[in-house]
């Protein structure tokens, strides 16, 4: 393999976006209101667009002729390197928003820093995506406040949704040997340094939504090494079905 660290890093970035984009697309036609249907699908499409660029880069780093589609549709669950947060089921609308809230706030900080990556392709993808993600943050933050500080039912659902996704936040800020090396060479971002700012953003919105932060729990981790929850396999079986059944099919 030409550059295995870059391959891993680009896969992690791309898989986060791809899996969350796929999750959001599951809402299409099912959201509580037509307007929400459109906004969730828009966010999903932004994310899938990012994934296309990152996975293309991963394929080039690997140097074995795999393009973004090959990586998206012909990798098995153990080869996916997304964080556990993005593969969590949609649940109800509140749980979906809670997941988006934690993730988009992380992704905006990450992409803001990646704009200065020494890898020019990563820097270019991040520069384009950071504006999209700024909007995702705005959307998720607004909904956190409206559901948290809304009716008795919306509040109860949001408390439950936040409780579900909370344990997956820690993994976003983990650094391992792959990222250590790339941080040293200026390609990757040291996400540990972004944690205080993320904590501050999350706390501010929760306060505005009059929500208590859930009790700290041991973080669930393993996604970056390919150890996933049971949910990812089901997601992939649906997402990959067509290309598995009819390899190379085009439209």
């Amino acid at each position: 393999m030409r550059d295995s660290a870059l391959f891993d890093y680009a896969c992690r970035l791309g898989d986060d976006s791809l899996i969350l984009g796929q999750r959001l697309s599951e809402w299409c036609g099912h959201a509580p209101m037509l307007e929400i249907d459109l906004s969730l699908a828009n966010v999903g499409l932004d994310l899938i667009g990012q994934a296309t660029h990152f996975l293309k880069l991963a394929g080039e780093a690997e140097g074995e002729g795999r393009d973004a589609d090959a990586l998206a549709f012909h990798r098995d669950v153990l080869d996916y390197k997304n964080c556990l947060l993005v593969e969590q089921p949609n649940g109800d609308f509140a749980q979906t928003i809670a997941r988006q809230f934690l993730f988009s706030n992380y992704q905006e900080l990450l992409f803001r820093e990646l704009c200065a990556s020494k890898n020019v392709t990563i820097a270019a993808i991040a520069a384009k995506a950071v504006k999209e993600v700024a909007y995702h943050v705005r959307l998720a933050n607004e909904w956190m406040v409206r559901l948290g500080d809304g009716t008795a039912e919306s509040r109860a659902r949001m408390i439950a949704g936040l409780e579900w996704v909370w344990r997956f936040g820690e993994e976003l800020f983990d650094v391992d040997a792959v990222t250590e090396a790339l941080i040293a060479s200026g390609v990757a971002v040291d996400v540990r340094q972004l944690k205080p700012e993320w904590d501050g953003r999350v706390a501010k919105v929760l306060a505005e939504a009059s929500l208590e932060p859930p009790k700290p729990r041991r973080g669930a981790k393993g996604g970056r090494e390919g150890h996933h929850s049971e949910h990812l396999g089901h997601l992939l079986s649906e997402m990959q079905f067509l290309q598995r059944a009819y390899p190379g099919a085009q439209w």
Partner: protein
Amino acid sequence: MTKSWPLWEVFIRAKNGLSHRHAGSVHAADAKMALEAARDTYTRRMEGVSLWVVPSAQIVASDPSDSGPLFEPAADKVYRHPTFYKIPEGVKNI
């Protein structure tokens, strides 16, 4: 759906210098969310540079049954169109 969010009318400015034009409507619980719904619904293909949303309930409309007295008197007053003047030679823009 028994209970629905209020309706908002959406106006888009296509580019600077043009006026906002009515594009359609969205449902939203409040003004901020109406702007976001309008952005997601009506500006996905670079349709605009500025958005207005207005509660539909705030629009005061003329009564269709009044259209006779309101609009028909203008029909036989073609002289109100500025087409009866000769443009002096040498004037390029008027």
